[in-house]
């Protein structure tokens, strides 16, 4: 009973107050046949010391390789201060700020987060966050259907160059609500969605289109042309972006003539560790015209009885605890702790620091592309421009190459053949600001070595 403070005397006094003779008596309303027996699959307790020994051993098993995988989770430098402050008990062990007066710390921080995120995306407003990028995309699709009252089709265009796991989560979450996801083909030489790919949809009623920048292949889409095309077709535009890239690339609010209507993505690159996939957070921004259709918590600035500025949950009438079956979503939480880290991260990096970091991701990726494509038979899979990921074609099965690279402690990227049968010899490689020239050389030498071994 490691965390129960009761002494025997406490227990006795409490039982006396209640007027029963044992704790067991407190369960007398539960039918006896329902009482659980022994928990056979739960082992005996470990002390913290023994637990840490086991965990250190397990953690060490997974450590040590040089990581060039991206595909939705990115290794960036996280300033020491970020999680030092984030894990203060006052942030980490508070709950949803229902009592605003006793939660001004969290509330003001989230207001600052909303301000930073809206500005980074060049959008009017941001919510307090959703679970992750993939489920965020699903929430964006549901929101688009509510917000685009001119469209009756409940059909959404999603390019095949959007992250495959995002597309499948999107399908799982929206299909029961009769929303149809229509896949758009991408151009096999550019790895992007061209207006040509969209021509056949012209004149048909679609609620929205998803535009990813960069897309899953790391390629840069012609977002201005795509946005203007969609708006001309009376669709809403859902931008799906990497927030780190937005310090260098044009933000969705400025795409085309009118900008995106809804923007989502995963906030992980901004100060959140990879940690096997979570907790991350999904960010969501939109134009003020459709803010009331936005799901999730939203914090507003207001004043108290004395006229002093303060922060509170607002627009709560959209949410499940009031609207119940008519809520915008069943979501109750945001990913508060990850958002706390990102807010501190963005404050420490600032506009220039974030732009420099983002720029180095791009620059290092260009360096690695040059190194790898100098190997015989290795080439870029697509023409055009990319940000910090690149699809690299190798003269062997990607799965085999990656396996052999891993034996050499290089996690060389993501096997695109898993999701795209035409790309079984293509590896999606990612380089961030964390990699040195030496790291890049290690990858090149390892790849050359692996290809030699395979071909010999």
């Amino acid at each position, binding site marked *: 009973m490691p965390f129960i403070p009761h002494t025997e005397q406490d227990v006795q006094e409490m039982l006396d107050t209640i007027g029963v003779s044992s704790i067991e008596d407190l369960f007398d309303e539960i039918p006896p046949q329902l009482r659980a027996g022994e928990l056979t699959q739960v082992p005996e307790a470990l002390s913290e010391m023994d637990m840490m020994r086991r965990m250190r051993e397990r953690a060490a098993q997974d450590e040590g390789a040089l990581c060039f995988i991206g595909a939705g989770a990115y290794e960036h430098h996280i300033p020491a201060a970020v999680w030092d402050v984030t894990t203060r008990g006052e942030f980490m062990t508070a709950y949803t700020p229902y009592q605003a007066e006793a939660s001004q710390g969290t509330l003001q921080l989230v207001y600052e987060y909303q301000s930073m995120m809206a500005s980074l995306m060049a959008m009017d407003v941001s919510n307090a966050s959703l679970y992750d990028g993939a489920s965020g995309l699903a929430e964006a699709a549901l929101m688009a259907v509510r917000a685009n*009252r001119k469209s009756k089709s409940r059909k959404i265009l999603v390019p095949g160059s959007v992250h495959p796991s995002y597309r499948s989560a999107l399908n799982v979450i929206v299909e029961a609500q009769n929303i149809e996801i229509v896949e758009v083909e991408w151009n096999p030489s550019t790895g992007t969605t061209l207006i040509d790919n969209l021509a056949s949809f012209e004149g048909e009623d679609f609620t929205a289109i998803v535009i990813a920048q960069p897309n899953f292949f790391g390629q840069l889409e012609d977002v201005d042309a795509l946005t203007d095309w969609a708006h001309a077709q009376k669709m809403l535009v859902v931008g799906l972006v990497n927030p780190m890239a937005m310090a260098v690339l044009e933000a969705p609010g400025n795409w085309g003539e009118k900008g995106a209507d809804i923007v989502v993505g995963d906030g992980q690159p901004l100060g959140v560790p990879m940690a096997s996939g979570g907790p991350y957070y999904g960010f969501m921004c939109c134009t003020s015209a459709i803010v*009331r259709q936005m799901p999730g918590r939203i914090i507003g600035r207001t004043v108290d009885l004395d006229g002093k500025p303060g922060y509170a949950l607002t627009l*709560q*009438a*959209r949410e499940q605890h*009031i*609207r119940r079956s*008519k809520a915008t979503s069943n979501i109750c939480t945001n990913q508060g702790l990850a958002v706390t880290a990102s807010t501190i991260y963005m404050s420490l990096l600032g506009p220039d620091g974030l732009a420099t970091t983002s720029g180095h991701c791009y620059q290092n990726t260009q360096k690695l592309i040059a190194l790898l494509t100098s190997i015989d038979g290795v080439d870029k899979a697509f023409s055009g421009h990319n940000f910090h990921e690149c699809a690299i074609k190798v003269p062997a099965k990607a799965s085999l190459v990656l396996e052999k690279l891993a034996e050499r402690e290089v996690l060389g990227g993501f096997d695109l053949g898993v999701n795209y049968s035409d790309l079984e010899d293509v590896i999606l490689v990612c380089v961030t600001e964390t990699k040195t020239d030496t790291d890049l050389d290690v990858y090149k030498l390892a790849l050359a070595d692996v290809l030699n071994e395979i071909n010999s």
Partner: protein
Amino acid sequence: MSQIPADLKYVDTHEWLRIDADGTVTIGITDHAQSLLGDVVYVEHPEVDTEIETGEEAGVVESVKAASDIYMPIAGTILEVNELLEDAPETVNSDPYHDGWFFKIKPSNPEELEQLLDADAYREKCEAED
């Protein structure tokens, strides 16, 4: 006791209707309804020119802690919505029967007007609820 003007018609979901000489019907929510909701912060209107059936949702009225659907008391086509409420939703609280109207419709079946409650019947309804 809340106000229930004698010259209006009512439905038991707390909407009122004013029937103009040209057949146009103006619709809003009653004084009783606004007092139950508390401070109104937002009103969502239906789209002009759409035809909505009796009993279907035609909008939403929100206060800080509640949200309530506006139901179409009789079938009709939306002619005009009260844009004043977009910037001044509090008008629903301060003047529910005049400046706080929601929308105007052209009834699809004018005979439905026969089935509405008059002020006395609506008052009885409210008292029974309390």
